[in-house]
């Protein structure tokens, strides 16, 4: 689903001495099927921005169009329920939002709310549990008896159970061990492709942004600071460092190597394998066995 954000401004605590601008004049177009990464340091406005995408926050001025639905300032939006079905948000530490007695009931909650029958919701719970890589045997268990990594998967299954067309991920791998981190990101990436989703990933990991995103938006002080492909964004290290960010470790390595050799090398290799191949070719003078 296309997302078009026009002149979006958001102020917190309007009319009080604490009033402050959290977002200012944001203009963004996210084409259907895009994997967008939003990066920026804490307080740059990333979370405020994504909360506008399913109407959790409403603009102070400006509009957000999600497909044919428009969220705008001041309007009482009757369409929010259907919007929330189409736009799923996985918040930070989503396992903190688990609440029901069993894993099955927890995942069924969303579909039931949106009008699915008991049988349909049950079926959905099974399907989603398999999708996130958990055994069906845990359906009848309490979500609170599971490990942290399993709880997070159950929470994610609950969001996916609503069949969203747009998936918003707010640092979905925070606190996970390195293996879990890769597994969860791969899960989202496969879903993105398989279900043709529009995905918005908020992340502190430049590596994840470089690996998965088609497009990156850099936020700073409530404004869009940079916007472009990973290649464009990560070719401007000075500009990123000026706002406390950096290029991914792959690019950092290539820059160090380039400094040492004095020979130019393509800096847009974002995966470890690409970097190894580029280095190998340079060392073997274009050898074919790389």
């Amino acid at each position, binding site marked *: 689903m296309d997302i078009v954000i026009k002149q979006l401004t958001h102020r917190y605590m309007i009319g009080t001495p604490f009033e402050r601008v959290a977002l200012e004049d944001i203009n963004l177009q996210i084409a259907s099927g895009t994997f967008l990464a939003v990066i920026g340091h804490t307080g740059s406005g990333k979370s405020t921005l994504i909360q506008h995408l399913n109407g959790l926050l409403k603009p102070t001025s400006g509009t957000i169009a999600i497909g044919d639905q428009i969220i705008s300032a001041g309007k009482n939006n009757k369409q929010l329920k259907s919007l929330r079905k189409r736009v799923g948000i996985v918040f930070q530490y989503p396992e903190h939002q688990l609440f029901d007695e069993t894993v099955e009931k927890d995942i069924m909650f969303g579909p039931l709310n949106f009008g699915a029958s008991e049988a349909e919701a049950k079926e959905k719970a099974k399907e989603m549990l398999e999708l996130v890589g958990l055994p069906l045997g845990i359906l009848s268990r309490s979500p609170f008896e599971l490990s942290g990594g399993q709880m997070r998967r159950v929470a994610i299954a609950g969001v996916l159970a609503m069949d969203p067309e747009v998936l918003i991920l707010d640092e979905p791998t*925070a606190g*996970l*061990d390195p*293996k879990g981190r890769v597994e969860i990101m791969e899960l989202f990436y496969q879903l993105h492709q398989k279900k043709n989703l529009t995905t918005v990933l908020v992340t502190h990991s430049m590596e994840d942004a470089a690996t998965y995103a088609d497009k990156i938006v850099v936020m700073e002080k409530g404004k869009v600071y940079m916007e472009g492909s990973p290649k464009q964004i990560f070719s401007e290290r000075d500009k990123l460092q000026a706002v*406390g960010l950096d290029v991914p*470790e792959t690019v950092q390595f290539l820059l160090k190597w380039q400094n*040492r050799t004095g020979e130019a090398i393509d800096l847009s290799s974002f995966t470890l394998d690409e970097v190894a191949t580029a280095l*190998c070719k340079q060392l*073997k003078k274009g050898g074919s066995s790389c």
Partner: protein
Amino acid sequence: MKELISINDVSFAYREDEPAILKDVNLTVYAGEWLAIVGHNGSGKSTLAKLLNGLLIPTAGRVIVEGYDTARADELWEIRKRVGIVFQNPDNQFVGTSVRDDVAFGLENFGVVREEMITRIDEAVRKVKMEKFLDAEPHHLSGGQKQRVAIAGILAQKPSIIILDEATSMLDPMGRKEVIETVKALNEQQGITVISITHDLEEAIRADRVIVMKQGKAIMQGGPEEVFQDGEMLIGAGLDLPFSVKLSLSLQKKGIPLPKAYLTQEELVEALWTLS
């Protein structure tokens, strides 16, 4: 090297009818070292941290901190003075209404007299470079700054050990760096022992010693150079290899004759430069 903490045959379960989170763990923490503890989610790392200052008491075995036993209630305050923990969430640890009040909180608990308190607060806040923010309210601080205030609160008690329990995992890259650099300086300049429980392998490679936890057991300990060579063991423990090690291995596979896997980018660049 002087032993600060010794963990002897420690097992721990939250409830009697539940499987043990820690099983027969034996470890020693030495004075002045930076010790990284890594392991998968649920491997028992954080439980171990809580056993080190008596927040939890072992189900079996003993934890001795500078001669004090965590299982003895009358020795607990001596232990808590010596071992401070910085937890994961910066917002859950700020108890004061300003930086000054927050650092004072712990001292009040220990009954430190006012004059002494003022000196200690100033000194602690200076060490974490937050002296410009003494009167700042918590919501005006970044996550990294809040964690530095938490560290100052510990420093004011003049501890010998600081434990970071995934203390940088909720911070952005900048906040992460400022916290690690603050603690690194305390470790190097003041000789404070640091135990860092972390998922950040790039941080762990800078430690003096690394302990790998898996399913409640310490399965390996050694210098980072040694521990991070064993890729199979690390992946089996739910971890990953540091970037430079992975790149070294990938280059070796492509027929680049690197003599070993390197831990840091700088070392790998030098090794490749020598080859070219």
